């Protein structure tokens, strides 16, 4: 066995192992996916909405939060205007005149994490909900999340993000992607390993945020804060029934920018919490950090192996190009040598499990035709590598900033 075969073998081992973790958890808890604890009390909740040039969506976002079913005297909405240059401030001030639950903090532009930290200082809530200015929680979302906090060890609860816009190819497959991500996150909920409390709607125990807040140096403050909570020994949970709708990038360039930020933030977070590997008293150090780190690493290794295979093939045919001028018709002989090897068997097992994973994840999703799952698995998912490579390049250049706006 040569070194390349051993690397492929290790990759398949981890790929299949991780898929089985998800599938076994699902098989045990499949009937409880939508369950959530009924709250016995309704603590005060402060909604924080950081906003930077959000004139197109801020009004609807605030209205969606105001409509969230919860005792009216138990919630407040704090908009943190992060130095917007558009009409965001005016729109919020206009809404404030109609509803006294809304408060506005105006500040110089300093980024989302810092804006949230400013909001935390003013928030009165026992619980603090963070929402994006282009996201719209469903009416009953909060009630389906609150009950988890009756467990004193729960530090944060996140929701299920669904895509609002699903018109073009990219939006449609982001819809599938978000559904798959949400399902995976819910599965990890059963082993207390929810490692992202998403930006569109997540609920935090106020005392924790007041203690350490969001890290302004990290471009994915939602991942970082979750890891912080987990590293402190608290649990993070997910309510699969609590839905929030969000707007996703409509163009490839914006999609790449968004994903570059996610990757950069992920890598920053891994680096920050690397010392926790195998050094915590919960699964954070034993599963979350190694799993996320390996996911990044294996994606890169997989890409390099595939590129190596492709480049070798291209180089081989390129070497034959001079022979074309001597009467050799290269195009007649392009071929791939396939045979049933053990790596191919492992590859087929891995791919079949991945398809089962996607099929289960999309069981309750509107767009679950097998053709869409195949396109998702074979075209959309491989695109993940593009922003990952860009983010690694940017990381080496020290170019770490918010790329979306």
């Amino acid at each position, binding site marked *: 066995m040569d070194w390349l075969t051993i690397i492929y073998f290790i990759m398949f*081992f981890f790929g299949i192992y991780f898929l089985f*973790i998800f599938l076994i958890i699902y098989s045990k808890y499949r009937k409880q996916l939508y369950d959530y604890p009924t709250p016995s009390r309704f603590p005060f909740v402060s909604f924080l909405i950081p906003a930077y040039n959000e004139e197109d969506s801020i009004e609807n976002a605030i209205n969606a939060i105001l409509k969230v079913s919860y005792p009216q005297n138990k919630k407040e909405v704090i908009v943190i205007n992060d130095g917007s240059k558009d009409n965001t401030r005016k729109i919020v001030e206009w809404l404030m005149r109609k509803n006294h639950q809304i408060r506005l903090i105006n500040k110089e532009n300093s980024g989302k994490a810092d804006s949230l930290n400013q909001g935390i200082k003013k928030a009165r809530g026992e619980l603090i909900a963070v929402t994006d200015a282009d996201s719209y929680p469903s009416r009953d979302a909060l009630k389906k999340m609150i009950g988890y906090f009756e467990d004193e060890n729960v530090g944060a609860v996140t929701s299920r993000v669904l895509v609002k816009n699903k018109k073009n190819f990219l939006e449609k497959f982001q819809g599938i992607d978000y559904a798959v991500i949400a399902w995976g996150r819910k599965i990890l909920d059963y082993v207390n390993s929810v490692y992202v409390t998403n930006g569109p709607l997540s609920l935090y125990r106020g005392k924790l945020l007041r203690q350490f807040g969001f890290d302004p140096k990290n471009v994915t403050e939602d991942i970082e804060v979750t890891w912080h909570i987990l590293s402190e020994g608290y649990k993070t949970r997910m309510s699969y029934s609590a839905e929030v709708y969000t707007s996703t990038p409509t163009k490839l360039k914006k999609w790449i920018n968004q994903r570059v930020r996610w990757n950069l933030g992920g890598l920053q977070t891994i680096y920050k919490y690397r010392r926790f590997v195998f050094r915590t008293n919960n699964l954070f150090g034993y*599963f979350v950090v190694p799993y996320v780190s390996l996911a990044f690493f294996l994606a890169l290794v997989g890409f390099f192996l595939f590129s190596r295979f492709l480049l070798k093939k291209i180089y*081989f045919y390129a070497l034959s190009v001079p022979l074309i001028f*001597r009467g*050799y018709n290269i195009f007649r002989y392009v071929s791939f*040598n396939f*045979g049933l090897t053990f*790596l191919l068997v*492992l590859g087929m097992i891995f791919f079949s499990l991945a398809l089962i994973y996607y099929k289960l994840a999309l069981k309750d999703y509107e767009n679950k035709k097998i053709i869409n799952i195949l396109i998702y698995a074979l075209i959309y998912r491989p695109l993940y590598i593009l922003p990952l490579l860009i983010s690694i390049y940017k990381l080496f250049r020290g170019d770490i900033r918010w790329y979306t706006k």
Partner: protein
Amino acid sequence: MVYKIMKGNTFIFFEALLITLVLLSVGFSIGLYFESFRTSKVIQGYKNFEVEALDLKLQNYYFQTLNKGNCMVALEENINFADRLYDEGLIIQKYEDINQITEELLLEKKRYVLLKTELWLNSIILKERCKEPFHTVIYLYSNTPGQAKEAEQEAISNVLKDIKEKKGNQVILIPIAGDMELRAIDLQMKIYNITYLPSILIDEKYVLEGFHNTEEIEKYLK
């Protein structure tokens, strides 16, 4: 400590590990089975060819010593045998490229090379005896080429394959690895003054070094 963390729901991690290991073992075994199957097919194929080669050799002796029988029969047998040996050579190469666990089929390849050399000599004898207008095309290639040479060899191999398909029984095509440290091959290469691999030796007269296109080779096969 680890046990305390893993207990309860998280025992799932061990379950998944166990299933993964079982599945990987199954996958490994299936792959190994197919690879072994291919290897044993090559070995079995060689044994059959060995018998056929001996048979062919005896036929030759028979024609030579007793000067009886139809020379054409021996010639046809020789061509058929060469064709089968050629096809088997392609299969061995393919198997060797895709096998990942089992050892390289080096010994089998050496045996095939010797068989092919024997066939070549047989063809020379038959050509002289039968006075039939068929051509021997010996393709001497490197068994351990670099990338550039491998591309060149593949091109030559493809061109020769086309010529063989086109010319049928008029051509006996015998590809032989020239750098397998076999004295019989080294001697033949010395006799025909072949110093570069890949080279094509046509009718024991013309040596074409490196790549030549179909038309260039066909000029020697009139």
